[in-house]
């Protein structure tokens, strides 16, 4: 059996290192011994594929999951999921979660003194279409304090989890909002050394996504790892 083409290794500075002391929780959780470079075998280039069984239409609209609409500014987030070779990643599962407009997560461990919204769960799922496009409707999440350092606040963000086609294309990331004054002060975003790579986590306001009389739109494109050598097209 011929060797399987692996996936590209990251360019320096475009992914965070494990240890980033300004993000205090990394200090006792980042590995301290050398990582072992893993060849990409059949185990790494395969991974779970999900289909329509996991996603219902209401899963991609977080404002329709309860009896009434959640409070906050309704927004539309959409974009394109591509791989590093600029190929669309179709039919791939995106899982999202976020806090509500007041900056509070529906989670037992969130003790921030901000109100829960009975009409907002903060969880969604969507599959990309055959061109790799996705779209979901939600409300703009609030900022909230955390205990990383004195007077620490997380900028508004939405968590996203993607699988792609292989276990090594798995990606969990966060989407931020252009113009947020907290962005330069956030150690989690600043853990990415390269400015361009940080900038790509910031969604821009987008007229094309904006729906008249309904909601502002934000565009957030996502790039998953691509194969190092292009396998023969079938």
């Amino acid at each position, binding site marked *: 059996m011929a060797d399987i083409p692996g996936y590209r290794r990251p360019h320096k500075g475009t992914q965070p290192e494990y240890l980033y002391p300004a993000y205090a929780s990394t200090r006792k959780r980042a*590995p301290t011994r050398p990582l072992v470079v893993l060849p990409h075998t*059949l185990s790494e280039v395969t991974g779970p594929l999900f289909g329509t069984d996991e996603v219902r239409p209401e899963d991609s609209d977080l404002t329709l999951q309860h009896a009434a609409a959640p409070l906050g500014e309704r927004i539309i987030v959409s974009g394109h999921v591509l791989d590093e070779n600029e190929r669309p990643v179709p039919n791939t599962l995106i899982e999202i979660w976020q806090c509500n407009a007041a900056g509070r997560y529906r989670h037992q461990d*969130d003790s921030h003194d901000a109100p829960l919204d009975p009409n907002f769960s903060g969880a969604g799922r969507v599959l990309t279409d055959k061109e790799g496009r996705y779209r979901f409707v939600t409300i703009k999440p609030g900022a909230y304090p955390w205990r990383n350092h004195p007077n620490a606040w997380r900028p508004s963000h939405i968590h996203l989890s993607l699988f792609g086609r292989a276990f090594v294309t798995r990606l969990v990331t966060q989407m931020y909002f252009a113009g947020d004054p907290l962005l330069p002060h956030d150690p989690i975003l600043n853990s990415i050394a390269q400015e361009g790579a940080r900038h790509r986590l910031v969604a821009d306001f987008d007229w094309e996504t904006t729906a008249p009389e309904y909601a502002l739109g934000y565009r957030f494109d996502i790039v998953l790892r691509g194969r190092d050598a292009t396998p023969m097209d079938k």
Partner: protein
Amino acid sequence: MHLTATASQTVGPFFRIGLEHLYIADLAPAAAAGDKVAIHGRVVDGDGKPVNDAIIEIWQADARGRYAHPDDTQDKPATPDFKGFGRVPTDEHGAFRFTTVKPGSVPGPRGMPQAPHLLVAVFMRGLLKHLLTRVYFPDDPDNAADPVLKLVPAERCATLIAMKANDGLEWNVILQGENETVFFDY
């Protein structure tokens, strides 16, 4: 011209909201061939404290060594209903548990067989990108020749091999220190 992959960010402490719908602690459909095995362990930080807000994901082949994926073109029958994916959070004691079947051998670099193994991804607050490691099975004669275990310093290989326990197998994730689990640059 290539694009650059989007940067990873931590799952944070509240991932349950978004990830719970796919919690899967039993990877083995009732009819699946192979030896059922329960694997349990704990996730422990650099102070030796249990990590109660971690989540692990498992990816594996079936008992014949076939992945439920179209890029696995091996001439082996697929197991109906076998997906090979699991996702379990740690509890307040940092403990996790899942049930599966021992996978068969799958091909490795240059077609060399790999010993049966699971891939495990570890996510938590404080990890800006997930960790990737592997679990091998105790007393498997193929471990000695496994092409990935051979890349690991001999004195650290034990961290990748589950231990026999009363009720199945035990395998722990030690984030830092002398017995730190081997994590891969993937």
